[in-house]
Structure formats: C-alpha cells, structure tokens
C-alpha cells in the first residue's frame, strides 16, 4: 500500500471509530442529526449510481424510499417482523419496483425518463393513500413503540458505508466505466458492443436498494409514516442537490454534498426558518453556473485527482 493510500485508510478508520463511539458520548440531538446525515449519504450515493454515472436523471427516486418505508412499516406493524429484517425487505421491495419501472422507463431518453420518474412518485403516493386498509391511507401508519435510535443509527451508518464502498467498487470497475460511456455518448457505447439498456437497468436496481432500506429504517426510527412524509418531491430534490454540489459521478461527492448541505441546512433552519427553502434554490443555481461538476469534480479536473475521489 502506498503512503498516501495508507494515510487515507488510517484517516477513514479514525472517522469510523469516532462514529461508532459517538452514540455513547454524543447528545440525543447529535446522534439523531448524524443518523440523518447517514441517511442523506445513502440516498445521495444511491441517486449518484444511476444519475451521476449514466446521466439518466431520476426525479422520482424518493419513490423507492417511500416504498421501502411502507414495506418495512407494514411488515413490522401488521406482520410482526423484526424491524432489521423488515428493513431488508424494504430494500427488496424497492428493487422489485425498480425492475417493474426500469423495464419500460429506461427505454426513454433524457427528459422523458426524468418526467416518467416524477410521475411514478405521484402515482405511488396516490396508491398508498387509496389502499388505506393496508397502509392507513392519509391517516398514516403507526409502528409499535420501541427505543431503536441507537440501533437504527448503526444500521444507517452501515448502509451509508455500503453505498459509498459500492460506488467505489463500481467506479473502479469496467462496469462503472461502461455506465459512464452511457452518460458520455450512448449511441457510441451501443456501437462498441455495450448493452446500454441492461447496464442502465443494473445501475437502476442498485440505486433503488439503498433508498428502500433507508426508508424502512427511517419508518422504524420515527415510529409513524404517512404518504406526504415519505413521498415528498423535496427528498429527491435534496439528494440531487447534494450530488450536484459534491460532484456527480464521483465516489465521495455524495458524502461531501450530504455532510456540507445538511450542516448548512441545520444552521440556516435554526436561525432563519423561512429562508431555508430559498437556500437550496440558490445552491442549485450557483452550482450549475459556477461549478457544474461539483466540488470534487472541479478538484478532479483542476488537480488531476484520480477517479476514486
């Protein structure tokens, strides 16, 4: 292992140890805030897999979060499943949905795919509201009371780590490079023998699993869900902004974006509650105009940093 890689590995190990120890020494607010950061890392990292790597912008990724949340909540509340198992089932449900939606929608190009995904989220929200016998409809669904914050913290942390490690493995593989060729020039990729549709589908499935599990974990942590709390467009917009800010198509961009924007959001939220929605709009405009490749993308090209940042 080279000196620089050893240093990076050591730094990551220190951060990981600190995060493992944090619930024992941190405040309740601090633990909950860190859990939220883990969730945003998992969501932004997952969105990055399909949209950052292939260039297919999904405006409906929160649909997987919502489906995971409802799957997990229903299994815990009505079938009595252990919640960690229900969380995995939430990820599985999101993958199944991704297969069903991916087959028709990934044949659409660019903006048509984005609009189709937006529509998917609205349809799911309506369906969940309609089937109130199963989902509780607009009244929502309550889970049995349990103090699981610390366990959810660790599992969400593991999920964030798994998504980031998965992104690293993908970006450094030929599969990842092929996903990027779709973003760069799908026609040329096809002409070179790269089956664009099945590569996109594989990326889409991978990108659905994380939000599905995260949704189920959040449902357990909050103890109550309703359609507007797990299917809001704002969640998709937030993951997009985080990835754009950190650097789309990079390994650490979603992490940087999630941490930076969550901290900024918390600070602004606390002091200027009415201004904070404006902040995200301003960040989107600033990023698109000033650094379309995001913070890490900019550093990558300017300082010739490796693809693995």
């Amino acid at each position, binding site marked *: 292992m080279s000196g620089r890689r050893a240093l990076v590995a050591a730094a990551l190990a220190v951060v990981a140890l600190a995060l493992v120890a944090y619930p024992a020494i941190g405040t309740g607010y601090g633990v909950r805030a860190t859990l939220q950061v883990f969730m945003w890392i998992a969501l932004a990292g997952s969105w990055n897999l399909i949209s950052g790597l292939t260039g297919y912008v999904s405006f409906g990724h929160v649909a997987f979060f919502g489906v995971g949340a409802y799957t997990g909540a229903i299994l815990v509340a009505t079938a009595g499943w252990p919640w960690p198992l229900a969380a995995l089932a939430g990820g599985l449900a999101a993958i199944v949905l991704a297969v069903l939606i991916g087959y028709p929608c990934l044949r659409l190009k660019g903006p048509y795919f984005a609009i189709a995904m937006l529509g998917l989220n609205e349809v799911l929200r309506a369906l969940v509201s309609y089937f109130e016998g199963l989902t509780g409809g607009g009244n929502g669904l309550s889970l049995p009371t349990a103090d699981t914050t610390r366990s959810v913290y660790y599992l969400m942390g593991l999920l964030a780590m798994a998504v980031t490690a998965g992104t690293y493995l993908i970006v450094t593989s030929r599969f990842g490079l092929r996903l990027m060729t779709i973003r*760069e020039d799908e026609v*040329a990729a096809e*002409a*070179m023998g*790269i089956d664009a549709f099945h590569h996109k589908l594989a990326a889409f499935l991978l990108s659905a699993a994380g939000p599905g599990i995260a949704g189920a974990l959040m449902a357990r942590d909050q103890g109550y869900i309703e359609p507007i709390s797990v299917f809001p467009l704002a969640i998709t917009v937030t993951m997009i902004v985080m990835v754009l800010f950190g650097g789309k198509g990079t390994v650490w961009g979603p992490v940087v974006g999630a941490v930076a924007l969550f901290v900024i959001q918390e600070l602004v939220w606390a002091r200027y509650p009415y201004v904070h929605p404006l902040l995200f709009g301003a960040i989107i405009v600033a990023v698109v105009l000033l650094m379309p490749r995001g913070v890490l993308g900019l550093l990558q090209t300017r300082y010739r940093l490796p693809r693995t940042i």
Partner: protein
Amino acid sequence: MAILTVENVRKSFGGVNAVNGVSLALESGRIYGLIGPNGSGKTTLFNCITGLERLDGGRVTLRQERIDRLKPSAIARRGVGRTFQVIRVFPELTALENLLVVTRGPRAEAERRGREMLRFVKLEPLADEYAGNLSYGQQKLVEFVRVLMTDPALILLDEPAAGVNRTLLNDLLAAVARLRDEGRTILLVEHDMKVVMGLCETVFVLDHGDKIAEGPPGVIQADERVIEAYFGR
C-alpha cells in the same frame, strides 16, 4: 463466401430517400471503399449495417445470420466494429479507459493490450489523459484503436484519414492493410481519393442513395456515371 451481405436496403427520412435499394456483398480479408458526394447515403448505410438506423426495407446478413433487427450492441458483439464521421470518443474517460470499456476477460490483460494499442498509434504517453483533452487527430486514433480492441471481423471506418497528419496516416493505412492480411474485412468511407484508390480492392459508389457503380479502383475512376456524380455534366 461473403461475410456481409446487404440486400436491397432502403432507408428514408421524411421524403428523402437516403439509401434507396442498395445491395452489396463483402468477402473476408478484403478492403472495400464506399464513396460518393456529400449526402449520397454513405453514413446512413453504415448506420443501417451497424443497427443505429432501422431499415425501411431489405436485409443485412452477417455470416448468414440476419442482423438488421438486432440492437447495435448485439451487432457489435457479433464482430462488427465501426468508427464515426464525427469523432465519438468518451471525453471524460481517459484514452486507456476508452479502450478498456469494450474489453472482456481479465483486466490486467486488457490494460496490457490497451497500452500496446496506444503505443501502436504513438499515444501511450497520453494513456491517462482524458480523451476530451486530446487533439482531433489523437481522438481519431483513439477511436480507431478502440474498434480494434473489440477484435472485429468486419471494420467500418468512416473517413479515417480526416484530420490525421500524413505520418500517422501512413501508419494507420499500413495498419488497415495488416488487418486485411489477418483476414479481417474493411469497408471505408473516405473523401481522400488517394487513400481509396491506393488501398481498396473494390469500390462502391453511391449517389443520392443509389449504388451507381461497383468495381476495382481503376475502373471506377473511368466510370462515366461516377465522374458525372462528382463533377456534373
């Protein structure tokens, strides 16, 4: 035996007949030229062969298998490689990565072969440079060797000489001849008549979507219809 057969292929865009019932047959281990004035349908015919355009009529057969209903990637995997008139490298991938994406099998072997290919076109020092930062001619060469990485039996080259300096062009043409000697078939679209006449064994001429001539370069040069298509009456 023909490796590729194009039979009565038709393709139109709106009211324009881009390819109008063209037929041709390519045999293994030969170099063919496809020429014609601008807008004569050369690139559209390439797109029809490689699956990027759906045919309005006719059929394309590769080694006796009909391929005109296959996806472009499936056609490529059957051994049809191509370059484009307007370069289509992947700009945010490095020169080496541009070659790696089309490979299968062990990565170390693919990297070794990729570097060998880049060395062949004198681009190995730029292996880790983003392809988008390379010059036009260098990108053209990356695109050329990327096709070779797929180990194709049939190679379609769309204006390989355009934008490549004379020294590299000679190397490139020598490489094309060597590919022919290895038993591969090459069909090239080229406006540089010196290249076409010096390299190709058979030349097809298109004009307004119709095939108006086919034969050895010497015969084509003297063909009345070809002269008329290029220079008018």
